[in-house]
């Protein structure tokens, strides 16, 4: 009788569980950074990040560090040096419109391409998705979200809302404790990114020191300079098949210089809003000219007049007049 390919439990030693094939699949082990880069797509990821995001030097530096660690870990592994996966939980703080949410969305893809998370999907949640409305509702709700995020990135926007110090019976604390537990135990399977305004997040971390210490990367998003904002504006227009007409670019630079001085300036978000309003003005300008034959050029260009009609200019003129 031929021996079976399996063994019956309790009757003898079970055959060893099939091991994952070693990375590299028989190719010689890499010895230099360039060899590793050639095999992984870390280099392409970094180039892509540099090209597609304006400014944000601290963010890019941190992603570069994380990517370098991956490459060095591969080299160490080739020499038989063991390395644990690093803790990748992140906290994004910064003023409104500095790109926290945009970068978080990109981060899932970046970490996936670098090989740190298996799936690379992003589950974006806010307080409502984690915290329940009555006793016993919070834990299942939070656990369900955590299970959905496994293998990818969990992004908690406006995370400081989770903690409500004025209400000591608030269920937010329960969600935070569950979150801490999973961040600690399932570090290999889940990356948690919390984001929020700097001042609020500082208060939030002060009241939850455990959360602060479990997050390895605290990244502060700086405000954009005027030159960066102008570049962002051009990209936003290009993405929607618009462009600045003659003199419009200079007009917009002037607009930005005045808008930055005003209260409630929200960086890239203000730029987007300003451009949306300029598009509206362009549309009504074209609408007024009912008999004109509109060319592709007319339809795609934002003129200086569309920007100079903004409230910001008239307000500045009014304040200079007296």
């Amino acid at each position, binding site marked *: 009788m031929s021996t079976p390919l399996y063994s019956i439990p309790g009757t003898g030693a079970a055959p060893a*569980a099939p091991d994952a094939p070693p990375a590299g699949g028989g190719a010689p082990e890499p010895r230099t950074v360039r060899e590793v880069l050639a095999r992984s797509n870390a280099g392409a990821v970094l180039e892509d990040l540099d090209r597609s995001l304006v400014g944000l030097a601290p963010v890019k530096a941190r992603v570069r560090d994380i990517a370098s660690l991956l490459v060095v870990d591969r080299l160490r592994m080739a020499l038989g040096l063991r390395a644990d996966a690093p803790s990748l939980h992140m906290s994004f703080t910064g003023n409104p419109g500095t790109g926290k949410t945009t970068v978080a969305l990109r981060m899932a893809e970046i970490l996936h391409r670098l090989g740190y998370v298996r*799936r690379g999907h992003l589950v974006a949640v806010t307080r409502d998705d984690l915290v329940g409305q009555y006793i016993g509702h919070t834990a299942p709700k939070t656990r369900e979200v955590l*299970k*959905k995020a496994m293998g990818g990135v969990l992004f908690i926007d406006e995370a400081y809302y989770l903690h409500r110090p004025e209400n000591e019976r608030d269920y937010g604390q329960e969600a935070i404790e569950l979150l801490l537990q999973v961040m600690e135990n399932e570090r290999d399977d889940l990356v948690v990114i919390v984001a929020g305004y700097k001042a609020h997040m500082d208060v939030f971390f002060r009241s939850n020191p455990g959360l602060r210490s479990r997050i390895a990367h605290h990244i502060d998003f700086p405000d954009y300079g005027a030159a960066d904002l102008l570049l962002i504006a051009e990209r936003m227009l290009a993405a929607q098949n618009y462009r600045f007409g003659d003199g419009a670019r200079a007009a917009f630079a002037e607009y930005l210089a005045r808008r930055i001085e005003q209260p409630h300036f929200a960086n890239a978000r203000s730029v987007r809003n300003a451009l949306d309003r300029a598009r509206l003005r362009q549309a009504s300008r074209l609408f007024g000219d009912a008999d004109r034959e509109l060319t592709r050029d007319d339809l795609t260009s934002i003129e200086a007049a569309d920007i100079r009609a903004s409230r910001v200019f008239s307000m500045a003129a009014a304040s200079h007049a007296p």
Partner: protein
Amino acid sequence: MMTNPTGRLTQGQFSFLPDLSDAEIALQVDYGLARGYAWSIEYSDDPHPRNTYWEMFGMPMFDLKDAAGVLIELGACRRTFPQHYIRLMAFDSTRGVESVVMSFIVNRPEREPGFALERQEGAGRSMRYTLRSYAADAPEAERYRR
């Protein structure tokens, strides 16, 4: 148990194979997730083959992307019911109803005493047969005590 010399409960997939390791379970779960199935965990201490509906351990898990989520829940179930049968079931919703397409046991009691074949003499020389699990002699929740 002449036909099942190991005395193990054989229900669902893979039940004639050695117990799946967690890595193998994760592979099966990932296969199901890739096909769009929703996974559910059920447990029971009544192994009778006609006992179709086991107790649910939490809700079925929809919209998962990775097996790690299922394995967390499975770990919780194993800690709660270490001496119960636990099975994973995959539901396919493409036909408009959540129909079971995969089902396999992932946790067993340490000792499985098996089944007795009971014979009942009927009228004339007729014979009626029924299966009775030895474990089911004890009341519910007291079976499979170590």
